[in-house]
């Protein structure tokens, strides 16, 4: 499996570590003790879409440039549809 790091170019899978589903963090500015905020945290920490198909996830190019990436991958075939830097892809991290 080759991952096309936007900074380093195509690199072997083994240079990367995966962190899982790319999702927005719960809003830390909200009233943390509210029912809604607690539900938001439970959701973010524990619940997953876990689709069979396209999946956006966070990967770290650990043995390379050390960038955090958002990668879209098909969980059935491992085909990769693109990698972008988390820093430049705030949208990617949110969706």
């Amino acid at each position, binding site marked *: *499996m080759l991952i096309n790091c936007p900074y380093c170019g195509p690199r072997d*899978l*083994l240079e990367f*570590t*995966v962190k*899982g*589903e790319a999702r927005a963090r719960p809003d830390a500015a909200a009233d943390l003790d509210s029912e809604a905020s*607690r*539900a938001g945290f*439970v*959701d973010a*920490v*524990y*619940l*997953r*879409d*876990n*689709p*069979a198909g396209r*999946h956006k*996830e966070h990967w770290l190019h650990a043995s390379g440039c050390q960038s955090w990436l958002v990668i879209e*991958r098909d*969980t*059935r*075939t*491992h085909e990769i549809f693109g990698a972008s830097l988390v820093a430049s892809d705030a949208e990617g991290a949110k969706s």
Partner: protein
Amino acid sequence: MTFSGFQLLRNALNGGTGWTPHWRKAEPKPAYDVVIVGGGGHGLATAHYLAKDFGVNNVAVIEKGWIGSGNAGRNTTIIRSNYLLPGNIPFYELGMKLWEGLEQDLNYNAMVSQRGVLNLCHSDAQRDAFARRGNAMRLHGVDAELIDREAVRGMAPYLDFDNARFPIIGGLVQRRGGTARHDAVVWGYARAADKRGVDIIENCEATGLRSEGGKIVGVETTKGFVGANRVGLSVAGNSSRVAALADMRLPIETYALQAFVTESIKPLIDCVVTFGAGHFYISQSDKGSLVFGGDLDPFPSYAQRGSLHVFSDVAENAMAVMPMLGRLRILRSWGGVMDMSMDGSPIIDATPIEGLFFNGGWCYGGFKATPAAGFCFAHLIAKGEPHQAAAPFRLDRFATGRVIDEKGVGATPNLH
């Protein structure tokens, strides 16, 4: 037909012509009292106990492929109850007791073999942790023995005791643990359930869960709508996909786990051995092949095959503990998709939809749980309340903080 020594002899003499199919090829009726989605070990065991112990016979098990085509037919067949936490030990020990009576209960040879499970330890700290686990087990009435290096050598002289990085200093043994023939477990439950009137419907995929006013009314399938006001989901690696049909999101991610089989050799390993310094475990099948496995692939996967780099890692673990394995050829490898829960423990619970029940999150340890999961799930579906041994396996425990974190590694499923 009831299997017996007499039947065996009779069919040996008449050329095997007296054997009949083990279960009927059923087609769905318009409605049932209970529909179980998923014809793996758990779904079939649930149907068996519903019919046998809870008086619910009007039951269908619907399976999208053939029964046992999922993890039930892909696992490495280890059964044990050597857990640490109070939420887990009673459940797995209930399972162990059911294994011990399973073949009589099903009138089927499931090749349950209590050959013992030996966990190796490689440091003082690990030995202390094993002592704690062993004590917890004994306090719950489960057998456990902490043994020293020489006793391990007596059981498994072929291990690398003096490995510079991972010397073997002792082990924890559960002698009642062992293996069972996975396919026979599936077939035995299917046959026993079928005999009590359960319809086993293969090549029938659930494509929708129909509810009205917050109550389940049936399942849309590739063979049409099947009505039921109690539906049990038992679909292992596909849990999130099927739950999504009812708009539920689960605390589960799906990962691929591989297993490997070598060419057959003479009897060598007479128990199950697990390496304590990495993730590697091995046993020998009755055909003589060595069966082994290790870690999951590191990323979510619905592919029923694993990555080569994980195989290399498993092979390195193998060489660290049992160097003679390097001389054997691997015949086959395969993978299954695991329903990894966020705390590494399972879920057997009702859902927010009335009449819809969920059994899943078995991670890579659900084969041993087949009888107990089936029994407890049947209890829940029939009575509407959890069996005592499975009461901690709640769906809402992540929100309430009552996680059962056997390994203490938090909400990262691939670490469990």
